[in-house]
């Protein structure tokens, strides 16, 4: 008799546990449906005077970072010093995608904080950002020399993140 009453309750609890686990399991920060696929075509005009815009041709032949950022983005300022470090030590070229930004604001931001980028593309209408499956700033993609997306990180790239997530993939195909 008892068992009869307990069974539906047990099933209910099991289902609840599974659903709760799935719900709380937010997508990992390095998940993106482009990982493993070729980088979509990017063709952005220059956002900053003095640096070219961003296109796939310029990025081929070497490992590069594609970094989505904006001068308005507070979290981007947290990763900025590390990006400067990457630039100053010639570790990896960084191609910036300037999302929803104004040229004056961008110029002021780079003047104050320094410029770690090889090129900065103007993505004011956000078409490229959606094309890359990006959900916010800062987000960074690691691209192989053949133009394949090796990984994507949603959040500020700082020393620990670089060491744990990006560095191991340098040398991957």
């Amino acid at each position, binding site marked *: 008799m008892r068992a*009869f009453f307990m*069974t*539906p309750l047990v*099933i209910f609890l099991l*289902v609840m546990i599974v659903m709760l686990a799935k719900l709380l399991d937010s*997508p990992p920060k390095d998940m993106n*449906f*482009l990982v493993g696929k070729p980088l979509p075509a990017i063709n952005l005009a220059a956002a900053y005077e003095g640096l070219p815009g961003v296109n796939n041709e310029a990025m081929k032949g070497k490992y590069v970072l594609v970094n989505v950022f904006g001068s308005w983005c507070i979290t981007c300022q947290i990763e900025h010093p590390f990006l400067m470090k990457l630039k100053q030590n010639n570790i990896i070229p960084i191609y910036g995608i300037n999302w*929803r930004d104004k040229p004056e604001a961008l110029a002021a931001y780079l003047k104050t904080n320094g410029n770690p980028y090889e090129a900065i593309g103007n993505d004011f*209408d*956000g*078409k490229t*950002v*959606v*094309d*890359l*499956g990006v*959900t*916010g700033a800062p987000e960074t993609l690691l691209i192989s020399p053949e133009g394949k997306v090796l990984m994507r990180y949603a959040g500020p790239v700082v020393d620990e993140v670089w060491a744990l997530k990006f560095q191991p993939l340098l040398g991957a195909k």
Partner: protein
Amino acid sequence: MKPAASLQRVKRGVNPLRHFCASLIAITIFLCSTAHALTIEKTLENPKDEARAQEIFRQIRCMVCSGESIADSRADLAGNMREVIRSKVSEGMGDKQIVEYLTSRYGNEILMQPPLQLATYLLWFGPVLILLCGIGGVVCFLRGRKNHSP
């Protein structure tokens, strides 16, 4: 003494009906102003296209809000996605194609409703199955009781 004084207060005080109407007007103005904030974004000129775009918006989840579609959300990314969808609609891209494009970039979680695929059959039909089992269990139990009662 006291009842007279309170009566006086009611007479001199704010007419409750007027107060209610004023509140109603204020609330309506407030609601209209927030609606206006949303319509500042450029809609498509062709009303058919805009209607098509709106229909797609209702199917796409806002990735940075919990549970809202991009039709309802005021988040930046949602506005961004609406713009991108509008430009694809005006370029002539079909509804299915646009949705496929977005799921290829963001995965199935970008859809408000999980797709009806083999992998999600359990999600869709599970609750109904559990309900049927429950009903079946209750029926069996009641039948059993009938047999046992004198």
